[in-house]
């Protein structure tokens, strides 16, 4: 028993030795990790619970996340129940500063206006989000708004580097505004077109670009489509050919492949987030690549 106890105390001690003074940002998704890094630069350490090829709706709480959440100074997640399957469990293991209501707890959906808020809530409708569409990072305006909030929170955690955070924000915001203007000019050729989506992952981007959603391969969110529904999609597409069928890197491929083959419509995997495609190395590239892929 004594030998055991000694070993445990020793190992436990080791786990604390990695503690760092830099503000530690725990993001639920890679887009928020990337944004925190834009504002924090070298002064912070940021991690993401999910990577770009993982569906953020469904991950399992794993030991490394339990370890990271305990040390987090700032939590940034999309919210609107996107992470409802795993974040509550993680938060139970997190420290006080990142709990709901604390300055270290940022759910992006609490600060922006979500679209597609359902009128009716019923389990028979699939995995619907009562607070609206949570894929908010695909609205360029949201990125800009959250960048300021991140700057403000980092400055309160680490007042010594407030000037650095303010300068980084200023630099990022002007670059982002210029990029937004560039993306808006792409609207001219894309607006008015329609696409078929797999899941409602791109609603904010499509709204920004003025692209209509012709149909959704998923009849109900989170539930695989029925054969009858797929047949309907094929007939809708034949009557009114869309620009493309779009999906995320983590969507199941079988149904969209089948519809594309049946109709001959172009199938595009958009990056969705940072790390979604091999070349998607920052937030700007999510938009650049998506617009380029849609315009080709």
């Amino acid at each position, binding site marked *: *028993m004594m030998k*055991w*106890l000694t070993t*445990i105390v020793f*190992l*436990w001690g*080791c*786990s604390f030795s990695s503690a760092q003074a830099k503000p530690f940002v725990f993001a639920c998704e890679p887009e928020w990790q990337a944004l925190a890094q834009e504002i924090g630069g070298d002064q912070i350490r940021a*991690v993401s619970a*999910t*990577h770009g*090829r*993982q*569906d953020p709706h*469904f*991950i*399992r709480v*794993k*030991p*490394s*996340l*339990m*370890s*990271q959440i305990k040390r987090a100074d700032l939590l940034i997640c999309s919210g609107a*129940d996107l992470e*409802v*399957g795993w974040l*509550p*469990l993680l938060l139970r293991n997190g420290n006080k500063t990142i709990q709901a209501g604390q300055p270290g707890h940022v759910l992006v959906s609490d600060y922006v206006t979500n679209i597609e808020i359902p009128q009716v*809530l*019923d*389990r028979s409708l699939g*995995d619907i989000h*009562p607070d609206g569409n949570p894929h908010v990072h695909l609205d360029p305006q949201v990125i800009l708004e959250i960048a300021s909030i991140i700057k403000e929170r980092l400055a309160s955690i680490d007042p010594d580097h407030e000037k650095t955070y303010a300068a980084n924000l200023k630099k990022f915001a002007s670059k982002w505004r210029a990029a937004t203007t560039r993306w808006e000019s792409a609207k001219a050729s894309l607006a008015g077109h329609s696409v078929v989506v797999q899941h409602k992952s791109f609603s904010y981007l499509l709204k920004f670009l003025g692209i209509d959603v012709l149909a959704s391969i998923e009849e109900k969110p989170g*539930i*695989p489509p029925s054969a009858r529904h797929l047949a309907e999609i094929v007939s809708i597409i034949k009557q009114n050919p869309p620009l493309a069928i779009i999906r995320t890197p*983590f969507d*199941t491929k079988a149904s969209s492949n089948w519809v594309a083959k049946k109709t001959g419509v172009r199938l595009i995997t958009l990056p969705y987030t940072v790390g979604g495609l091999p070349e998607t190395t920052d937030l700007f590239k999510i938009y650049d690549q998506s617009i380029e892929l849609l315009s080709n």
Partner: protein
Amino acid sequence: MPTEIYNEVGLGLFRGSDFPFGTPDGQGIGASSLFYRIGGDVGTNGTWRFGAYQVDGETGGRVTEEGTVTFIGDTKLTAYDIRYTFAPTGNERSQEVTLTAEHFTRSENGTYGATGDEAFATSAYDAETKGWYVAATYKWMPQARVGVRYSEMSNVDLTGALDGTAVDGAGFKPTQLNLMFDWTNSEYSRIRLQLGSEELSAGNEDDQIILQYLMSFGAHGAHKY
């Protein structure tokens, strides 16, 4: 991203009035427990976790076998478990391999005695019983999984006064092998076919085919409506 190691340690002190202990010997604390868990990542899409647990206590009289067999003395249970999971794309909902194994040891030091039909005189006992299993499951699409599990126990082989009594396992090794296939139709329902082959006592081989339909009702953490 550097590897993050998760550590957790726990200690418990309690009365120890339930199995595997029994009527406490005197007042106060009769048992203690200690656990340790450690885990981390293997690459981007794999995780591992190891756990160790020990519970230690004494009893002034634990009665089993329908009130005929009495144990007095110290009992220590030690368990280790290890788990490894790997999801090829990071999305375990679509595809995943899991490997799990556990090992248990029960060591008892005291006396055993019995009354009734199989009565024997109270005699000294100091022995260990061990058991373990290994299991693997493979999910190749969101709805379908296959799995296999093998379990085994090693029994005590007593000599002296307790030889041949109800507490003598005579060194027999009970074994069990299971194969399973399940289909998860929706969040609410799952159908499972399980094939089992076991020998829980010498010469009693039992082959089983089990078909289960599992259904869940109501709201849960991720679906509050």
